[in-house]
């Protein structure tokens, strides 16, 4: 069974290309959310295996969404900044991928860490 993914990002162009990329790699994208509030709602409804979560969003940012998400999905943070610019990750976050390096392989690497 394919790993289900919820993509959370306020830029539609990124959501669109991330969906194409992940589906081409065998993932099933079950939902997209443009902000933290909708992300929390969809995560409760859809119970995805993975939440791909942008850090910089209007309203509540990715760190805060990660704290509020129910236990269950693996949380992977993404950003157009790189790891040097975001600081330490909370314990409930699986890992971080810079948006420019997003691929099926990089996601599998983080999920298996």
């Amino acid at each position, binding site marked *: 069974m394919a790993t289900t993914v919820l993509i959370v990002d306020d830029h539609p162009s990124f959501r669109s290309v991330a969906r194409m990329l992940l589906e081409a790699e065998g993932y099933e994208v079950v939902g997209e959310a443009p902000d933290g509030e909708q992300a929390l709602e969809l995560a409760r409804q859809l119970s995805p295996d993975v939440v791909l979560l942008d850090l910089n969003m209007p309203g509540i940012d990715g760190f805060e969404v990660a704290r509020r998400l129910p236990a269950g999905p693996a949380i992977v943070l993404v950003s*157009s900044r790189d790891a040097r610019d975001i600081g330490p990750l909370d314990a409930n976050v699986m890992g971080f991928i810079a948006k420019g390096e*997003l691929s099926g392989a990089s996601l599998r690497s983080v999920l298996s860490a």
Partner: protein
Amino acid sequence: MSSLRARLWLLGVAGVALACTDLVLTVTSDHGQLRGLNGSLGALTGVAFVGTGSFAWSRRPANRVGALMVATGFAWLGAGLAQANSPLLFSIGLVVGPLYLVLVTHLVLAFPDGQVTSRLARRLLIAGYADVLVVYEAWVLLDGHIRGEGSLPANVLAIVHAPGVAGVFDVASSAAGAVIIAIIVGILVRGRRRATPVVRHAAAPVLWTGLVCLTAVALSLAIGSASVSDIAHGITGSIAMLAFLALPFAFLVGILRSRYARAGAVSELVGALSSRAALRDTLADALGDPSLRLVYWAGRWVDREGRDVELPDSGVTEVERDGACIGAILHDPQLDDEPELVSAVAAAAALALENERLEAELRARVAELQDSRAKLIEVSMAERRSLERDLHDGAQQRLVALSLQVGLARRKLHSDPLGAEQLLDRAGDELRLALEELRELARGIHPAILTDRGLPAALQTLIDRAPLEVELLNAPDGRLPAPVEAAAYFVVAESLTNVAKYAQARHASVSVLRRNGHAVVEVRDDGVGGADPEVGTGLRGLADRLTIIDGRLDVLSPPGAGTIIRAQIPCA
């Protein structure tokens, strides 16, 4: 001759006439002792009070001291009528009697500025006047045959002869007078201790003489009302009389001291200024006022450190040099009564004050520059943050998406050429949008058209892009300095952005004019008004940027009446 001087001359003539009358009445009196001596001293005292009082009144018309001295003199001379053999004149003298005592008490209390500031002292003074004008007069009205030295004429103003009752009023009046004056002496002693050095110096001769006089009067009244000892009553009465006689001369001594002190102060000041001693200390010594402060005019009032100062309502003497105000001396308000002294000191110190003013102006300017520098750093950091945010949210996101699309297209090249082609088309779109956002960002940092073609052309591009009708009313001929053109451009850019976002306007206008060494930029709209520069960061940031180049931003935006944004930017 002014009307005041004419009136004072008349008073002087009247005083001399009354003094001569007193002298004649006393010398020819058939009651009283040492008539020649008493008559001469009495007349001299009256003339001294009237003359000195008239001089003081002409010198300081607004100060009540002069009028009080004149009144005391006439009351004294009026009391002298009691030496007359005529019952009527004797009775009039009797009625006037102790009025001079309460007037001299009033004079000593009010010295040197003519005001009785203590509420207790004012109440005691009122009680004193009531004692003389009511209690004492009751005695006069009730005793038709006054007992005294020799055979006194009858008191023709008595309504009824009731010596028993009259005696009660007599004792009561004396006792009350003694108590009132004794308390007033205490007030004077306490007030002298609390007075500033300027007041103590100016008032010393009169206050000391007045204290001796009033103390002796209080004792004499107390001894007299208690009928303790005729000798003691006589001695204290004589001391009181001598001190009373000395008062006008004490006043003249005070004036002479002040004049010599003034001449000495100015000559010492000139010497001290050449010795590079601290100016403030030198002026304080010259005026005898340790509380003295100096403030300087640098477009506003500042102290030596360049800090803003608010001037008090009194005790301020401005200093001018070559017709322009350069500073002010803040001194004890009592020195307002010595304007010639303070002005002479100020004139002697004007050059040194001008140097200090320049220093203070420099310090004030340095403080302004430090403020400006802090603002510059703040504005610069805010602009950097804004730039980072715009790059991150705009072009950076597009380039990330572009990078992923190209990567995906590459993977699909052989397996799905059509899908790869579609991805590459989308990548091309993302690239165009990213380029446009970067161009817009560059314009926001500094528009190339401003450098290449000048302000009018740059303003026209802003107007062409505005989503409403905008008219360019005025634009300067020729180029302005580059920072001024940039500031004017951004004022118009920010203002038109706000008009488009918030004003709900149908029409706007832009004007840039050179006026009095400034570029005056104005953006008007006919929208809803109510703009508040404190609410949004755009106008506030603009105001800060203008402050750095000594410009200012004004926002006139009454609700419902449109908005005028006006910037004034110095351009030499």
